[in-house]
């Protein structure tokens, strides 16, 4: 005879009671006691901050704005000089020159983490979190919560597979969007491990999990979901991923327990692993282009607990400079070239992998029309090994973003502190399908990961060269 509803429900509760693991009354008393003491300590620290503010000390601004208190002082020692040798795969074109004159200024710290002590300097301020300028991340508490439970499971994928990373516990600060009616949320978590090796192993476990997420999966409500997962960035000891869950209708769709859009960042430094998660019903608020800078910012803070720090500021410096004149003409017996050099420098202490410049031609005021694309022409890359110019894609910006996909060179790695340069020349064709008159435009350079098409790294464009078009 089948069980009645109440018998079933009571049976569930009794099963839970039987299976419950008791931590014990003494542990509960200890936890309550610790929290009382911690609250008193926090109150004392807050009073100290107020006193410091009254004394004018707060006027000394720190690079860590936002919600976090001023960073605590920690001992730093000069770090090793990064390896700046030319990247073995960074010469897609023999014309590419490289140098190692710009070693990034980094430090390496040797401090170790204490789960029960919140170190403000280790936290990236919410003001530095990626957003679309409408989401203003707002912390849900004044201090990170400390979780000391013994179970620390981790789920990289939607399929529910969990792995334990061996964390001692974690500190967590959650945030919500300050935009009215917005359900977007952020979570910043610092996991602490018994050793640096354990933290490195944890990051490897997490990365392995992400690398093996099944595409076809389901939410807890058994709703079929396709997991569209992209590793958007990677530097030493740091990864960024973006999950988008696609429903049966091929549109982003949220399973019952997950956000449709999830952007996740992980950094390991010393015996700590930091996770920042951004999630919401729309992906608009979490642009990918600041991922490299944000990972570097996380590493720059988390190195409080040891390991390599990353410098503040732009991770990559992109330049474009004319070798001679910048005037183009589509007519005349001799082709008139504009020659320019594109330079790229990695300012980080980590290798930036799989990047390439997009050299694109902006709209031109020299053409009349709803989409005034640059007049037809050619773009060539200097092949130093062959001693010749080689034709590459003449990439004109139109009405969409297609131009951001084509690169004149294959993807390459740029080691810490390394610089690379490419020499180009462009010319306009004598025969133009549209009427051209005097005007101006630009040669734009944008850095992308060709393996992740359509997504720029940092600003778009990162550098630009004005050119003029002269007719007659």
């Amino acid at each position: 005879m089948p069980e009645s509803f109440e018998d079933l429900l009571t049976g569930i509760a009794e099963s839970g009671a039987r299976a419950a693991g008791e931590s014990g009354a003494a542990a509960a008393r200890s936890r309550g006691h610790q929290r009382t003491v911690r609250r008193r300590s926090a109150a004392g620290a807050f009073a100290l901050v107020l006193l410091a503010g009254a004394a004018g000390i707060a006027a000394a601004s720190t690079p860590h704005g936002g919600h976090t208190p001023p960073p605590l002082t920690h001992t730093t020692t000069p770090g090793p000089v990064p390896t700046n040798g030319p990247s073995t795969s960074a010469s897609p074109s023999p014309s590419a020159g490289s140098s190692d004159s710009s070693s990034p200024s980094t430090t390496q710290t040797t401090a170790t983490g204490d789960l029960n002590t919140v170190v403000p300097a280790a936290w990236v301020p919410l003001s530095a979190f990626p957003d679309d300028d409408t989401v203003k991340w707002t912390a849900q508490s004044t201090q990170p919560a400390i979780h000391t439970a013994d179970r620390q499971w981790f789920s990289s994928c939607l399929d529910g597979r969990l792995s334990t990373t061996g964390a001692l516990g974690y500190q967590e600060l959650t945030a919500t969007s300050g935009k009215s009616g917005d359900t977007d949320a952020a979570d910043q978590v610092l996991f602490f491990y018994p050793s640096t090796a354990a933290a490195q192993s944890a990051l490897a476990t997490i990365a392995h999990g992400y690398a093996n997420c099944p595409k076809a999966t389901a939410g807890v409500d058994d709703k079929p979901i396709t997991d569209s997962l992209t590793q958007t960035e990677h530097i030493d000891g740091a990864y960024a991923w973006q999950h988008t869950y696609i429903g049966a209708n091929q549109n982003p769709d949220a399973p019952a327990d997950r956000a449709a859009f999830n952007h996740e960042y992980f950094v390991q430094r010393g015996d700590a692993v930091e996770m920042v998660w951004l999630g919401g019903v729309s992906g608009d608020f979490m642009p990918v282009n600041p991922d490299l800078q944000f990972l570097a910012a996380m590493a720059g803070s988390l190195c409080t607990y040891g390991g390599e720090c990353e410098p503040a500021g732009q991770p990559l410096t992109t330049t474009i400079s004319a070798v001679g004149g910048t005037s183009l003409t589509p007519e005349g017996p001799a082709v008139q070239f504009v020659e320019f050099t594109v330079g790229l420098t990695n300012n980080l202490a980590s290798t930036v992998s799989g990047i390439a410049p997009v050299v694109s031609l902006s709209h031109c005021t020299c053409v009349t029309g709803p989409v005034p694309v640059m007049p037809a022409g050619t773009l060539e890359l200097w092949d130093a090994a062959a001693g010749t110019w080689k034709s590459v894609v003449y990439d004109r910006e139109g009405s969409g973003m297609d131009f951001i996909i084509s690169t004149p060179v294959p993807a390459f790695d740029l080691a810490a502190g390394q610089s690379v340069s490419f020499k180009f020349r462009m010319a306009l064709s004598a025969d133009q399908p549209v009427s051209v008159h005097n005007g101006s435009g630009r040669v734009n350079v944008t850095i992308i990961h060709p393996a992740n098409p359509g997504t720029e790294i940092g600003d778009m464009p990162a550098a630009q060269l004005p050119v003029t078009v002269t007719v007659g």
Partner: protein
Amino acid sequence: MGAHAEWMDWGVAVSDELEFDEFYAASFRRVVGQVYAMTGSLAESEDSVQEAFARAWQRWSLVHEYRDPEAWVRTVAYRISVSSWRKTANRLRAHRRAEESDEIPGMNPDRLALMRALRAISAEQRQAIVLHHVVGLSVEEIAHEIGAPTGTVKARLARGRKALAPHVSEFAETGAADGGSTSQTQRTAQAAEGSK
């Protein structure tokens, strides 16, 4: 000296430890089971109940005076747990503290099916249903425990049953009735009467 001074300053006598420990031993598993039925996650239930007991100890001088300290712990644990549930439900996906599976080994298929069905209804409805059908509280008692009007409790019970109707044959004809189902307490009382 410092520890003793702090201890006394905290307002808890050493003799309270015994009372608290007895309360913990008598109640912990039962409350975990109830919160588990409300939330569907054993790990979250364990953690939230442990946290609720920690909070109870922080204010034990008050809590132990309550008429039903276990109800206080259950309510606090539920709020902690449902907060966590909501956090998981709405956003948190990359990390969580949970067992390999929230399903307890050995549970029969009918109970597993009911657990899955319970996940499909709102947390407030689950809470009302568990308090009524497992803990055995009346609508008025539930209203008092969760701090909601009795009409709200009735509505949650009715809507919860209606939502569960496709999964529970007993509720197949459940309309918008209030707490008309026989509670555990009532059944126990009836059984006791029947045995007289």
